[in-house]
């Protein structure tokens, strides 16, 4: 066990998997000598050499497109996109090719690639450095989407993602890259993709979130006197509906929290499914506490945009009072 930040946990997972499997190649902007702009890949180029940790040209479509080729040949590329706002240029390669290659070729070609991407707001960064596009990719069949909220999960989920035979987008909530430490086993272990985690048990309200806002949810719970079951989704797609359904059947009340804009965010899908599958158990409308349907503002206003614990707290009260 070591007491690690999320950044350190990811770095460790990468190092251990690279040690075990020389089909793994890392590529991306500034990931080599510089160790990435968040230092997630620190020391890896030195340890594994510039053939395996590759500073690429500044071209996101190129990074993903060549990774697809590497994967088609049987390697296991782990491309990094420097910020989620720069997935845009790679959107086509991700959605028109990576997500489709297996089904297009009826299994002849597969894409065992893990795309690492720092995600979300709260770090006073410039434009396009604070977004949350997970729903975009959840709406794209053929991708798995993961977003850990703790160092332990980050290591275990990343190892699962790397070993997964299909493309996985691994979103790293940058706001909690170094926000806290947690005991993480030194040895390799996996946290399965597709399984949510019950963070706190409770029977009054089901609170559902993922990534950095899980921390805001925990803060809200601390300030609340109610019995709240907090579910950390951990995997965005496929969604662990059994975990959600069994909680909602117990509580009948739901609050969903995410940073992304409300309209067509993942919260909508979860709310729709809960209504489909727990219709007779619901005792109040499902509340979504989310970013607004605006552009994520420049950082002077970012805390107004992000769902902070007080907004979550209000929602909990409203749902309970209904």
């Amino acid at each position: 066990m070591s007491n690690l930040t999320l950044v350190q946990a990811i770095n460790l997972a990468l190092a251990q998997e690279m040690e075990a499997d020389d089909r793994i190649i890392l590529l991306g902007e500034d990931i080599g000598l510089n160790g990435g702009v968040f230092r997630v890949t620190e020391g890896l180029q030195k340890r594994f050499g510039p053939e395996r940790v590759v500073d690429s040209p500044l071209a996101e479509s190129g990074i993903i497109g060549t990774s697809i080729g590497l994967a088609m040949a049987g390697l296991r590329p782990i491309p990094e996109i420097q910020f989620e706002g720069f997935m845009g240029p790679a959107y086509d390669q991700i959605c028109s090719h990576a997500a489709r290659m297996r089904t297009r070729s009826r299994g002849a070609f597969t894409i065992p690639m893990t795309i690492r991407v720092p995600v979300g707001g709260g770090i006073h960064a410039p434009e396009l450095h604070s977004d949350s596009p997970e729903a975009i990719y959840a709406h794209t069949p053929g991708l798995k989407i993961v977003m850990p909220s703790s160092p332990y999960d980050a290591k275990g989920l990343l190892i699962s993602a790397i070993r997964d035979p299909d493309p996985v987008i691994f979103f790293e909530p940058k706001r909690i890259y170094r926000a806290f430490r947690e005991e993480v086993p030194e040895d390799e272990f996996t946290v399965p993709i597709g399984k949510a985690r019950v963070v706190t048990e409770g029977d009054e309200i089901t609170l559902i979130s993922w990534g950095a806002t899980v921390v805001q949810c925990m803060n809200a719970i601390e300030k609340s006197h109610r019995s709240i079951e907090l579910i950390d989704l951990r995997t965005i797609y496929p969604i662990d509906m059994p975990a959600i359904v069994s909680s909602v059947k117990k509580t009948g009340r739901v609050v969903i929290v995410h940073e992304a804009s409300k309209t067509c965010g993942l919260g909508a899908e979860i709310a729709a499914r809960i209504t489909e599958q727990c219709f007779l158990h619901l005792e109040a409308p499902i509340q979504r506490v989310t970013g607004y349907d605006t552009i994520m503002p420049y950082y002077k206003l970012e805390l107004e945009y992000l769902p902070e614990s007080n907004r979550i707290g209000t929602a909990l009260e409203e749902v309970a009072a209904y």
Partner: protein
Amino acid sequence: MPITTVLDTKIRRISILNEHGDFDAELGEGLIPDDDQVRLYEHLVVCRQYDEVAFKLQRSGRMGTYPQNKGQEATSLGAAYALRRDDWMVTCYRENAGLFWHGLPMEHILLSWMGDERGNRIPEGVYCTPLAVPIGTQMLHAAGLAWAAKYRGEDRIACTFFGDGATSEGDFHEAANFSANLDLPVIFVCQNNSWAISVPTKIQCSAPTLAQRGIAYGMECVQVDGNDIFAMVKATAEAADRARRESRPTFIEAVTYRLGDHTTADDARRYRDQDEVDAWMKRDPMIRFRRHLEDRRLWDSQKQADIQKRAEKEVAAVVKRAEEIAAPHARDMFDHMFAELPEELRVQRDTMRTSSIGQDPAQIEDAVEVTNP
């Protein structure tokens, strides 16, 4: 002094067997053994027959949209001939002749255009990739495939094909740039067939050549008469050598022409002159190749009649195979989504004939076969 020259560069054009039948012995002699010349020509006849039949299949409602290859066959075939069987061919959709030479069973292409993904299930041991519908995107995969070979210390290379139009896409640029800067063993074959659907090449590139696209990357580049199979073989062989020995990419502009419509959904008479087409008809790669073989007494009209008959038979058999493949199952669309089907997708699959997908997993029997492909 203050104005100095920092770059001075030239681009060559290779032509060996021109449209008048002139053959440059110095470059061409010994390039392709006689036997192979005959085999290549025969292959062209079969491919032309395939193209005609595919066109008719579409016209009679037995196949969806199809892009004719007519007139461009020598480009991909010449390149394929110069490759090794285990080199990657990363194509677009107008390279049937090269792909079949490279080992792809002929029914695959038909099956794909018949709206069936199984056409893209490339058999084990065949080194090519599925049809690339989004223009200009597949060159990046070629770069990645070549990179993988280099990483593993294999001497396999990748040769990718694309049109003049494709060179306008950003992904073309990124693929060329990655290949040049990371020293990847890739050959870029641009099939400049004068048109991208209705748009003439000058709207894609107002420079005097497309070959000079490669200069941007410090890449070796060359222009080739793409209807001259000898020139294609020579340029590709040189490029393959450069890729294999020096791990450096090459850009080849193959000047050819699309004799047919863009696809069966297109009507080229709307936007181009018949005169232009007629002029290019005379430059058909098969005419000059046949004449050349006849000059060398490697070919005669009896052989032509024989191969024509064989081609018809062979293509008919291919069509039969493609059409006899059992219709896909509705549930097939789920089966290759992931290595292991997630639970929620399993439920969707098993309830697909009900409205309430996700709610009634008991109806798996309902997933019937498609009756009307």
